[in-house]
């Protein structure tokens, strides 16, 4: 298999793996984990009320564990998708990278290996912990993940050298089918992807300007209200009224923060994948009708998921279910395209190799 097709296949597989992991996480882990965090916070507030400092500390240790469970899964999901993007981007830029095919293949394999091992290592952090670790605060799973990250850095640095060599050579790169394709599916995916990224930029700017700083202040204020009220408010009950209201508001605040960040990152990620899928249409060995269908399905899912995520606070599980459907549409469209790439006979590899051999002679 040529280096370029390895990058396309590895990249698409990583993106699919990351998206499936994200969907499974959202359906089975996210909400139960958030409930457990809420319960532990209530228990910590009650412990403050009853002067049980040690219990309060233990409840926060439990919250730390729940947050680590959530954080490592989100990181594994995001990094797997990120490495998938990088691999696909390098496949697109491949004609501009002046390296031998064998060196490119090694670097591609290094990047895909890092892209698989890093998320697996991050995923395992919560389960492996500090068992047998030689370090005080970093366990073996983290060490493996960090080493895999270093592999990916080395691979990208190698490709950067290739780009630099092409720049220095000053020769025009070989004509490339991926960069010349003007099919309907390709154009729709590129236009849709550009619009999605722009929407994500604007949403992120609005969030940073209007919400981020206010939410950070609110976070500290609500935690202070919980602690002060539980410690000082008179009256009966394990959780005083003011502390209870702060607990509820804190839960809403965390949910609001999470859905806005998720919508921002997902709309940009889907814009990127739509743009990249637009480039790869010549690699997708399917009939024109199926290429168009998968392009529309991908864009549909890319809009439905972030919009439904944003509506989760208002419409609850219904919106969550719709968001999951959006995720399934994206997965289905990418699986369809991946099938087309797997059916591809390799003629683009062959022509790219021939042109590259000519260009590098």
């Amino acid at each position: 298999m040529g280096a370029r097709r390895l990058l396309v296949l590895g990249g698409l597989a990583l993106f699919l793996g990351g998206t499936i992991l994200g969907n499974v996480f959202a359906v089975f882990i996210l909400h139960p984990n958030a409930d457990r965090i809420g319960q532990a916070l209530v228990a910590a507030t009650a412990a403050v009320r009853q002067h049980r400092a040690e219990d309060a500390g233990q409840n926060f240790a439990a919250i730390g564990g729940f947050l680590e469970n959530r954080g490592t899964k989100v990181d594994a999901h995001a990094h797997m998708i990120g490495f998938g993007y990088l691999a696909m981007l390098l496949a697109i830029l491949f004609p501009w990278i002046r390296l031998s095919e064998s060196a490119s293949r090694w670097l591609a394999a290094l990047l895909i290996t890092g892209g698989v091992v890093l998320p697996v290592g991050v995923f395992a952090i919560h389960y492996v912990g500090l068992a047998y670790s030689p370090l005080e605060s970093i366990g073996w799973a983290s060490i493996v993940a960090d080493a895999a990250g270093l592999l990916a850095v080395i691979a990208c640095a190698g490709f950067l050298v290739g780009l630099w060599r092409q720049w220095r050579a000053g020769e025009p790169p070989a004509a490339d089918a991926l960069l010349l394709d003007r099919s309907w599916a390709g154009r729709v995916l590129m236009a849709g992807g550009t619009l999605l990224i722009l929407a994500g930029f604007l949403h992120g700017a609005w969030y940073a300007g209007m919400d981020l700083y206010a939410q950070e202040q609110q976070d500290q204020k609500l935690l202070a209200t919980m602690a002060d009220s539980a410690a000082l408010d008179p009256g009966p009950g394990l959780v005083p009224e003011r502390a209870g209201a702060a607990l509820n508001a804190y839960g809403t605040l965390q949910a609001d923060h999470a859905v806005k960040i998720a919508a921002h990152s997902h709309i940009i990620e889907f814009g990127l994948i739509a743009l990249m899928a637009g480039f790869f249409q010549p690699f997708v060995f399917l009939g024109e009708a199926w290429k168009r269908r998968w392009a529309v399905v991908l864009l549909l899912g890319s809009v439905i998921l972030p919009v439904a995520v944003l509506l989760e606070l208002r419409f609850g599980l219904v919106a969550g279910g719709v968001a999951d459907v959006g995720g399934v549409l994206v997965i289905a469209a990418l699986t369809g395209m991946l099938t087309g790439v797997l059916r591809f006979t390799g003629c683009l590899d062959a022509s790219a190799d021939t042109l590259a051999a000519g260009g590098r002679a």
Partner: protein
Amino acid sequence: MKHSQQLLAIAGLALAVWGMSYGFYYAVWIEHQTLDHIGGSLAAAFQHAALRETAASHAGLADYARAKYVYTREVDAHSHWIGLAMVLMLLAALWNRLSFGETTRGLLAGALIAGAYGFPLGVLLQNHLGGGIGQGIAVGGSILLIIAFLAVAAGFARESAN
């Protein structure tokens, strides 16, 4: 391949390598300790509250808020550097479809590169130079990016119309 296109591709991949290297350094030497600090200071704040030590509890919460503020910006800088690097690389591949002359393309590439490097840098500098200066750089970088991206979208639209 035009000068601005090559510049965008190299700047994009270099930014990805930089963002990943920063992430590697951060994961190995800073992140675990920072997370321990955030969790520890919050737990300490509630433990002090349980002992009715209000001042110490408030100090713990302030410590928690500061550590979380710093952590958020460090992680955001890492993810935005890499995200924007990928946008630069993608745009480099699409650059030939832009309906502008090389001078305008060069200016747009410069604005995109400055925004992609500067915006996350501004986010990170909020931890070191104080909120105002860092925030100003981040806002400037993001405005530059949005304007350049709008111009690029217009360039693609003109090319499609032609």
